[in-house]
Structures are given as C-alpha cells and as structure tokens.
C-alpha cells in the first residue's frame, strides 16, 4: 500500500480530568479518506482522545489538555473553535437528535445553530443528498416533518450521522456509535462507513475487536492513556509489534 495522505496529525497530546492524567503524549497521523479504528480496553482514553480533537474534552469542568492538533497541516489552536468543529464532525455513543426539531431540521441543525441561513432550494437539496448518503431518504421521506426522535434508534443514529456530514466536514469522529444499537442497525451503519470514506476521513472508536477488524483500514491501539500501536489494520492484527497489542488481541484484557 502506498504512503497515505495525512488529514489529521496529533503531536504529544496530553489530557487531564482534574488531577488525573488520562492521555500521555499521544502522537498519531490519521490518513485521509480512510477508516481509522481507535480501539482498546474500557477506560484507556479512546473517547477522550477523539474529544480532544474537536475541543469537546474542554467542556467537562476541570478538564484540560496540551499538545498540538494539525488539521490539513494547520494548527487548530490558531483556528476559531467553530471552524474546527465545522471541519471535524462528531457522532456520539447514543443517538441524540434534537427532540424539539423535525427530521428535516435535524439535518440542517449545524447551519441553524451557527446562524447560517440557507435558501429554501439549497436547504431542500442538502437534506435530500445528505439523507441519501446515510441511506435514510427513502425510509423517512414521508416523515421529514415529524420529530427526529420519532424514528427508530438505528434511524436516529443515521440521522445524527446526516446531521454531522451535512456540514461537509473533512473528518468525522464516531464515538462507539453502535454500542446502543441492535445488531441489524449496527450492520447498516458499518456498511455505510465504506461509502462514507469516499468523501470523509473517519475515526471510529470501538471496544470491539471484531468491529475494528471489519470496518477499519488503520487501527490505533490505546492502553492506559498511551497510543501503543498504530498501523494498517491487517498488519496489526496479523503481526502486532507490541507485546501489549498481542496480549489484547489474544483476549488477555477485557
């Protein structure tokens, strides 16, 4: 495989909750338009890592972080946080469409919440193309003006993916997006990823080994706040270089 283009690079990221340090000098290079799985046992800092990338980590009272995040070569600390988040979208563990908004409004929520107005035609067009991208258009076409929360759990999560990609981000962070879903909805979302990576670079937090193996091109393995191993998924799964990765893959830690 040729050397991939890098979309996101982190340099020595450290993160704390109060006095507890949860990430230690994490440096990673995330390839463009690929799926990178972030895996590791519970409490290893996977979620905190992706939340430092879009500054969401700092919303927690007492949380802080240090280090540099380069987005397409630009230091994100020099950018407005609004622009950073526009370029780095996020999908959460539990589907969280806005309950006060319709399906249609949920897709456009990013525009509305950042005060960008759209013409009617443009709005309609974004809603249709985005919902098509997440395979939801035919399912919800008749329910566009019903509450976003009236959809099934799996549909709600795809609506949340639509809400994130409607802003045309470069990177989309998925924080264990299928852990609250049934196997069928999980499968639909996993299939969706291979379509989405044509347009977006994806970071996918998961604690499931099989899931990481199924969906990812690259994998980052975290343990106790450290990035232990990073590489092409096939290579890491077949021949891990670090003893800890090998032990994890053979089922030695939960």
């Amino acid at each position, binding site marked *: 495989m040729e050397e991939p283009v890098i979309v996101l690079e982190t340099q020595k990221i450290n993160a704390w909750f109060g006095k507890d340090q949860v990430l230690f000098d994490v440096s990673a290079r995330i390839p463009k338009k690929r799926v990178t799985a972030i895996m590791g046992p519970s409490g290893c800092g996977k979620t905190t890592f992706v939340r430092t990338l879009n500054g*969401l980590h700092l919303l927690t009272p007492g949380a802080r972080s240090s280090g540099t995040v380069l987005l397409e070569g630009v230091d994100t600390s020099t950018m407005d946080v*609004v622009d950073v988040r526009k370029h780095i979208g996020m999908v959460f563990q539990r589907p*969280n469409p*806005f309950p006060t908004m319709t399906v249609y409004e949920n897709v456009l*929520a990013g525009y509305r*919440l950042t005060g960008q107005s759209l013409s009617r035609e443009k709005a309609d067009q974004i809603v249709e193309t985005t919902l098509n991208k997440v395979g939801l258009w035919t399912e919800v076409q008749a329910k566009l003006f019903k509450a976003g929360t009236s959809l099934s759990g799996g549909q709600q999560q795809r609506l949340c993916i639509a809400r994130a990609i409607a*802003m045309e981000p470069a990177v989309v962070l998925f924080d264990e997006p299928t852990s609250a879903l049934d196997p069928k909805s999980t499968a639909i979302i996993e299939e969706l990823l291979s379509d989405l990576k044509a347009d977006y670079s994806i970071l996918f937090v998961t604690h499931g080994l099989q899931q990481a193996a199924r969906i990812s091109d690259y994998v980052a393995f975290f343990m106790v706040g450290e990035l232990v191993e990073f590489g092409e998924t096939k290579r890491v799964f077949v021949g891990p270089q670090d003893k800890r990765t090998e032990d994890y893959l053979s089922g030695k830690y939960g």
Partner: protein
Amino acid sequence: MTGRKVKNGVMGGLVAASALLLIAVLAVIVWHIFISGVRYLNWDFFTKAPTPMGESGGVFNAIVGTFLITLVAAAIGTPFGMFAGIYVSEHRGQRFADIVRLCADALQGVPSIVIGIFGYTFLVARFRSYSALSASIALAFMFVPTTARVTEEVLNLVPSGLKEAAYALGARRSSVVWNVSIKTAAAGITSGLLTSMARIAGETAPLLFTAFGSRYIEWNMLRPMSALPLQIYIYASSPYPVLQQQAWSAAFVLVLLILLLQYGAKHLIARVLRVKA
C-alpha cells in the same frame, strides 16, 4: 406476635394514617370553602364592584386586581428569574453560581410580611402613594427566586448529550443555551412560571402595605387596587354577615384560580417527561 411484627404494624399504621390525614385536611378545606363559597356566587359577584353597604355587588374589583398585580409581577420577575436560573445552570459548580443559588434560597425563605414592609418603605413611602405597581414589584421579589430555582432545575435535566451535539456542530454557547437548552426545557420552564404565579397570587401580607385595597374597579397600576386575598382579609374581619359570606365566595374563587394554575403546571410537567422518555 413478635416485636418485629408489632413494630412493622405500628409504623405501617402511622404512615397510612399520616397519608390519610393529608388528604382529609385538603378535603375539609376545599369542601368547606366550596359549600360556604358557592352559595353566594352569582353573576353580580363576578361583574360588579362592592356596593356601599355590601348587600349585593361583587368582587370584580378584586378579581381585576389579582390578575393585574400577578401578571405585572410575573412580567417583571420572569426575565430576572429566568436569566438567573440560566446563569446558575450554565455555571454549575462555580463559586459565584453557588452564591447566587444560596441567595435565591434565602430570598425564598424571607417571610412575605417582611417583603411587604420593604415594599412600603422603598416604594410606597418614597412615592407617597399606595399603588398596585408597588405590590407587583414586592411580589416580583418573591417570584424571582422560585422562578430562578425552577429554571435551573429544569435546565439541569436537559441531557448533556444534546448540548454536546450542538457544540460539536460548531454552535456557540449562546446558541446552545437558546436553541437547545431553553427550547428543550420550554414546557418545564413554563410550568415553573405558572407554579410561581400560583404562589404569589395567594399572597396577602405584601399587598397590605402596597396595593392597600380599593372599593372601585381600578385599572391604573399607579393607584391603590384591591386583590382577592386583600378583599378576603377585609371582608372576613368585618362584622357584617353579608361581607363574611362574600369572603367565603372570594376564597372559593381564589382557591379555584390557584388550583387551575397548579393543574396547568402539572399538566405541562407531564408533557415534558413524556418528551424525555
């Protein structure tokens, strides 16, 4: 019987008896007010001001007064109460927010007669006139802390996942507060406003020193005005049976009004909970 069983039986009996007592007290009050009040209700009661001797006539002046004074107090107090509640909720865990919350609790605990005296000293005495507006301002001081606390509590119920989703889309804090938190909590906040209104609508002590009362149908907020609690107080302590009967009728109307406000509030809270589920 063993000691454990005796204890269990006694405690169970006490708990059930207390629950029954609570229902009985409410039932006696409502029943008595209903029986005593309904008898003298007629069209004149709702549409006319008191006549000089009080033989016929009604309490329309007091009904108008209660509505005006309560609504103006709510209009003055709502923005302050809501903003304070938003502040405390958004700055959870910070020292200044804790101080604000503590002050709201303390203000809630100030006896209403003290609020009345303050209204008298700083408004009535200064402007040399009893007025409905000074009553509204005094009641607003009781309205603000309850509203602030309810707003805070309802905002704290908004799932943090929703706020995070909004931040992750690039929304600024003001946008998250207005477009996500407040909209999601709207029904709960409205219900809190209704409960706070119900609470001040029945207040008497602050009105004695501020609105003072009036025999006339008064729409001018800068003049003395009657209100149902005032009218009840004056009529019930008068020696005339006709007026005492009217006091019961006025009490009935006031209780009905407050129960309606509280029912409205409950109903809205039920709707909020359904949205959450």
